[in-house]
């Protein structure tokens, strides 16, 4: 996968050697390069978190839990934009199946405070898929979106902690071919003039998945 880096190093060396031959050795390690504004290194921030909530039973959801990872790109000091692939397992008491949601969200943050404590509003959303984790016929496509408020704390160094309270709504649907059953639950045969049952009646149905949930998201943050 990363064979190329071997080549990059060699190439880098190839370019680096002539340059080193022409220039005197620097006495000290050069300072890190910075943005034009000169006050902050221009790097992505990274978060990994675990989110969950239980007992509120909004939308029939008894429990929700999951993980997420975030790559954020600072736009000035005030905004972060990035992506947040996340996964949520949802347990509903009133249905026969459990659902797992996967949402590769796009996120946008507005920061009100900065180091060492950052307070932010966050909005997220985008394409989402839902899976019936019990019987897997394929994925239901849809969307999800939400928002929340969070706080991130960093003491010394790039590592820190964050916590968010958020709300998410999602909707997805799946076309599925299902057997037609009678009142007793038995499959129905395709009518045959000879009264033989050689095939069963199927119909295409649309299964809808809905997600309405509060989540508390807690994890670590890495902001170089």
């Amino acid at each position, binding site marked *: *996968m*990363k*064979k*190329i*880096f*071997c*080549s*990059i*190093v*060699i*190439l*880098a*060396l*190839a*370019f*680096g*050697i002539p*340059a080193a031959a022409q220039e005197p050795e620097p006495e000290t390690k050069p300072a890190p*390069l*910075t*943005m*034009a*504004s000169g006050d902050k*290194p*221009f*790097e*992505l921030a*990274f978060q990994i978190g675990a989110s969950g909530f239980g007992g509120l039973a909004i939308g029939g959801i008894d429990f929700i839990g999951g993980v997420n*990872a975030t*790559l954020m*790109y600072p736009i000035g000091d005030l905004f972060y934009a990035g992506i947040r*692939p996340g*996964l949520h397992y949802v347990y509903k008491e009133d249905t026969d199946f459990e659902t*797992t949601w996967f949402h*590769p969200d796009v996120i946008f943050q507005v920061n009100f405070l900065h180091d060492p404590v950052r307070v932010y509003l966050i909005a997220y959303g985008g394409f989402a*898929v839902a*899976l019936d*984790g*019990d*019987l*897997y*016929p*394929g*994925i239901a496509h849809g969307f999800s979106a939400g928002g929340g408020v969070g706080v991130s704390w960093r003491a010394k160094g790039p590592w820190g902690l964050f916590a968010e309270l958020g709300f998410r709504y999602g909707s997805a649907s799946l076309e599925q*071919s299902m*057997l037609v*059953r009678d009142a007793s*639950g*038995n*499959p129905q045969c395709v009518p045959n*003039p*000879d009264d*033989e*049952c*050689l*095939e*069963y009646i*199927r119909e295409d149905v649309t299964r809808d998945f809905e997600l309405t949930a509060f989540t508390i998201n807690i994890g670590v943050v*890495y902001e*170089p």
Partner: protein
Amino acid sequence: MRRGRSAVWLLVLLVAVPMGAGAQEVEAASGEEEGLWGKYTNYWDKILERVMDMDLYGASAQLPKGIFKFKVDYNMRRAVGRFDNHRVRTDMIPPIEFGEPDNPLLAINLGASGEGGGVTMQFSYGITDALDFYFELPFQYMDVQMRPKVVAMDPLAVAMINSNIRQHAPPGYPEIDPNWFDGSRVKERFKNEAAAWFLRYLPRLGRPSMGDPDNYPDKLGPGKSFITDGLVLADINTGFSWNYYRDKRISAALCARVFFPTGRIADPMNSLMLATGPGLDQGVGSFGMGFTQWYDVRVFRYKHWVDIIIGVELTMAYFFKSHRRYPDFPEPTGDGNALLDMLDAERNYFPDMHDLTGKTFEYTPGVGVDALLQIGVSSLIFDVGLGIGYSYAQEPEFNADWRFEQMVRGLEMAAAGHYEVLRFAAGFNLIPFYIPLSIHYQYEKNIGGRNTLIFDRNHWITVEGFLPTVF
């Protein structure tokens, strides 16, 4: 088309970014080349100097901190057969024979063939110099046919089937024409007629039909095809890789990943594994986790220009249990049962499973283990590698009705298997020309195996692009 557009975007970004904030800094730092091209090359020289100090080599190397990588992998392959349980090359699905192998009462070739490939897009980012995060979107395309053929039918069986049809089947039900056969072998010009009769008769034996017996292309014969509508999503996976040890000679890294069941599994009414059609799974159908361990030994280094590296890659994947649906099994008819009493008295291939219709079974995919030993030589622009790979797939676990499990195992499509491949890889990168792209080609050849498909024309083309986000 998509790859080309990506490359253009990458170049636009790379050119545009140094014109902004980063370029001002570079220009201020020293009396370096001016102008757009000068700024661009200075920008890359600085990044490469930083990478140079890290002395990266081998597959265990991670992206340096702040580097974003975009990779597109294109693979094409054609299934040409199968290694059976005794490592002997056979058809994709073993022929089904009833009676004596030398003089079978009935022999059927399920006529499976196909080709396909995939496009994998991977996005990765160097969180620290030793730790990467990646996200992979795999897509597949496939064109698989299942065109069953009756290879042989004993004249006694023909007479008995026709007699059963006359006694038990509805009036006017089509019989087998003895003129289709030369002895017990099906004549070439009647192979489609014989196959159509068999497909029409199959539901009477308690199995779903494998195609429309009345409408089919003459060239291929009756059966089913499975052609994806362009590229379809397979199982998305994401994870972290960590280069936890590195010195001048030895480097080791570990990758941990999770798989999401985003790829469809085949419809049980059209599944190659269940011999109900040519449909193939595009994913595993359940969540999974996997690990890859890399070891690189740099056995030779000529200054900074040439490296010879022996690499070992070990991969393991485990997927959790899921539920799957049984196919819709009709109940065997009277004449069907009479025929099965003669052909398959033990009902190994044709058990009556109509009571399973609409129900589900538990399926746990087997653990997969891969190992690759490769030796590679890298020079300034080009690199080549030669490797030998071994892949093992454990038998999946069925928690299903015993009749169904016996039938699936009898088809040998869900058995433990392994295969060995020879791999040749070569590539070049465009960084000497200040284009942050590399292009690699790889070819794999099956050299052996057991209970596994054989592929030829197994070509891979990989394009990688790099975008530093630290200026």
